[in-house]
């Protein structure tokens, strides 16, 4: 359940960036292979934001699909796991180009 400490970090980053203002909404980018379950972050969000500038803020999560580049044939493809093979050549040496994101994108403050 590392989403709890992930969510605590989100609150800390938001408070550092909010200029002391109450936060109305926060937008996250969460990659499909980031290892973080968006629903679990949503579950932790209320608890972690209580008595902070974030209390009552809306949480928007943008899910980033995973795309990998095959190191053997250089082909690009969408992947859904770390062990998807390259659809072009069948190789497993797939370098992730996106899908690992775990980022606070923007805030909306009062």
């Amino acid at each position, binding site marked *: 359940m590392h989403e709890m400490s992930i969510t605590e970090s*989100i609150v800390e980053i938001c408070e550092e960036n909010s200029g002391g*203002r109450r936060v109305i909404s926060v937008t996250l980018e969460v990659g499909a292979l980031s290892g973080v379950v968006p629903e679990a972050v949503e579950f932790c969000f209320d608890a972690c934001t209580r008595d902070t500038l974030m209390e009552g803020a809306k949480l928007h999560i943008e899910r980033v699909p995973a795309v990998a580049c095959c190191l053997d044939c250089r082909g690009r493809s969408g992947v859904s796991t770390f062990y998807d093979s390259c659809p072009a050549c069948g190789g497993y040496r797939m370098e992730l180009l996106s899908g690992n994101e775990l980022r606070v994108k923007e805030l909306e403050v009062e």
Partner: protein
Amino acid sequence: MCTTCGCGTDDHDHDHHRHDHGDDHHHDHEPGARKITVETDILAKNNRLAAGNRALFGNKGIFALNLVSSPGSGKTTILERTLRELSGDYRCAVVEGDQQTDNDAVRIAATGVPAIQINTGSGCHLDAHMVSHAVEQFELDKLDLLFIENVGNLVCPAAFDLGENHKVVVLSVTEGEDKPLKYPQMFRVADVMLLNKTDLLPYVEFDPEKCKDLARRVSPDIVIFELSGKSGAGMDAWYSWLKERVGKKG
């Protein structure tokens, strides 16, 4: 009590208690809602602290490994045998991570190697900040090899860099050969896999070749050793790998 590292006090200045403001974001002091672009990695603080640990270990010539696995894979048994074999030639230390008890640190201390226990309480992983405090208790100038035994958990520790040279994932033959596919994130970030408890292979349905194949699907370059921490079989290749990488100091 510091809830991030559990180090017992709240009257000292931890990095995570500071709320420094960088210059790279906009502060709005006018009334009315407005957007602030942040674009900050949620793990940035841990990664920064891990980079600090890595630099410290590098400066001191310490080779650091982060041992990860599910509970009961035999990490501590492998460590005990490894330390008995190597601690005569290399100066070793161990950071033990568990939710509760200092049982593992007591086991390690019985080998004569200094060990620090971190109890994470309800926490499911070690982070770089906890490790930075733990290693303050070692004489780092007199260390060659640092083992960090993470909390037994094949999920959460994958996301948290501690500043180690390599993550070493331990998988035992009693667990099922498809663990690399079930917990791919962990096998993806590990550079080494120790396939443990091979002494039990006659008694369990486990195909080591299939397991290794699945691990290499997730992590094509992963280095794999088949061994038994209990019997000692196969440990020599693991010791050789370590010895090739540990810089011995005078």
